[in-house]
């Protein structure tokens, strides 16, 4: 696949939110100033009932993007084609602007720890991920975007930086990237690298979406919990990304300690204002 119209389309403007059931009443009650919603794909990989009925209702009014947590790209277990078939069925139903998952693995020997576990940043792991990303894209018949994870440990065997790993993965697999600015901030703190240097190494033309979220500060390390408002440092990094990367669809993830919907909309409004300011500065 070469850079295509789809890639251009997926970079269209817009500011979104993660679709979470606690906000269904507000979303269904009246039109909201949200350009699109992102769903957690696995939450809707169920046979039927209310989850899919609500999905269809909201999809009728908003564009959607799909974000998975169980692709397990970096796992050395075989690719799970039952999962991929279910994912493909959901893609056909949702017709999302973008399908994404993570540079991570979730388990081996048939188990799923339901966590985004870190891949060693080695040539062997890179070759493995490239081959699997290609097969996944061939099966799905479309490009996917891979997200940089938050990580809490790194490996003595690491041979390259995560940013270089992702850039090479995207180039060789011809896939897109989902840049999670909060994850860059968290991992930079945890591993002692420079967040802006990391961002500068990411191939801009491959970035199809941006995530922003809050995290927990444990003092000696930070954890990507999505249960706090976005902090000032992450907003600053977001502004940096907008100035240097240009307009890329961006959204806020919130997965716990849910605030009133109006507070999330305030954060989204702040995101729009920062993005517009960044574009004015870039111009």
């Amino acid at each position: 696949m070469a850079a295509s119209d789809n890639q251009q389309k997926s970079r269209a403007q817009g500011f979104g939110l993660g679709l979470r059931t606690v906000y269904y009443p507000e979303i269904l009650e009246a039109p909201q100033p949200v350009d699109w919603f992102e769903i957690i794909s696995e939450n809707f990989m169920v046979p039927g009932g209310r989850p899919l009925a609500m999905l269809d209702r909201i999809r009728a009014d908003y564009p959607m993007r799909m974000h998975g947590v169980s692709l397990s790209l970096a796992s050395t277990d075989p690719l799970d084609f039952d999962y991929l078939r279910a994912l493909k069925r959901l893609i056909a139903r949702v017709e999302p602007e973008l399908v994404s998952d993570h540079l991570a693995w979730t388990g081996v020997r048939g188990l799923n720890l339901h966590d985004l576990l870190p891949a060693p940043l080695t040539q062997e792991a890179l070759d493995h991920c490239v081959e699997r990303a290609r097969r996944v894209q061939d099966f799905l018949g479309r490009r996917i975007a891979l997200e940089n994870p938050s990580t809490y440990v790194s490996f003595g065997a690491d041979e390259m930086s995560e940013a270089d790993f992702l850039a090479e993965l995207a180039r060789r697999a011809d896939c897109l990237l989902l840049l999670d600015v909060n994850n860059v901030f968290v991992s930079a703190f945890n591993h002692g690298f420079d967040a802006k240097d990391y961002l500068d190494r990411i191939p801009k033309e491959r970035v199809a979406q941006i995530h922003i979220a809050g995290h927990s500060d444990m003092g000696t390390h930070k954890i990507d919990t999505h249960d706090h408002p976005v902090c000032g440092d992450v907003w600053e990094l977001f502004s940096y990304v907008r100035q240097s990367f240009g307009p890329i669809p961006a959204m806020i993830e919130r997965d716990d300690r849910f605030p009133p919907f109006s507070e999330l909309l305030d954060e989204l409004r702040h995101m729009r204002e920062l993005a517009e300011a960044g574009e004015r500065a870039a111009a």
Partner: protein
Amino acid sequence: MKLADLQRLFQDSVLAETPSPLLLAHLRPPTRAASVAETFAVYHDGFRLRMAEFLANDYPVLREAIGDLAFDAMAEAFSRARPSTFRNARWFGAGLPDFLRATPPYSGDPLVCGLAALEAGLAHGFDAEDADALPIEVLGAIDAADWPRLRFGFHPSVTLIEANAPALAAYEAAQAGEPLPEPGLGPALSLVAWRRDLDVHYRALDASEEMALLEALAGGPFGDICSLLAFASPDQPAEETAMAAGQHLARWFADGMIVSAEAKPE
């Protein structure tokens, strides 16, 4: 170390009570934390917290009934005995009732087993496959001679639940936002849960309806359902048995449980 070996070692260290020193030796010293064990704990402890959270989402009344500490210990025992093999965490918790029925001390606790069965049955009803309920009027077109061979297809959400009166009382108190009653002994209860439109319903079954529904769900024809009821109540006149079977059937239609009715040969 090869990628596959490293991942096995990493996973084993998450699942074990304490991580392997060999794995920790393969990790770089952290930037600020005192030890690599401290940062690896984000994965190790996070796994336990996440499994307990999944189960708490699926079994909120069970958690309320036994308290957070006992619930977390149960979640730890379950996730250790039956670690998830599912891509969707939704299905991980579905195996909890089986585990509790088979595992002391939970197996000897009717409230725990009953509540788990009830909440799992209702969760199944929530997102089971969709199907259109059949109106009872279709029975008007069935030839009288075909009735004994009439078999019924049920909505995929229809589930029989083996619970008990204390578990049901606890569940209903929680739904009403009231304090849970003191745990006590009570009779076993068979319930049926199903989804109509998008809402999950349930009700208790008497012995006659339970027997009839079990047979119907297994694909037995209406004639066999009547025979079973007659066998269970040998002193009952045949007309009353047939009437009871007809009443059960009418209620299943009224509840929206039936999606097909066809006169099929054996």
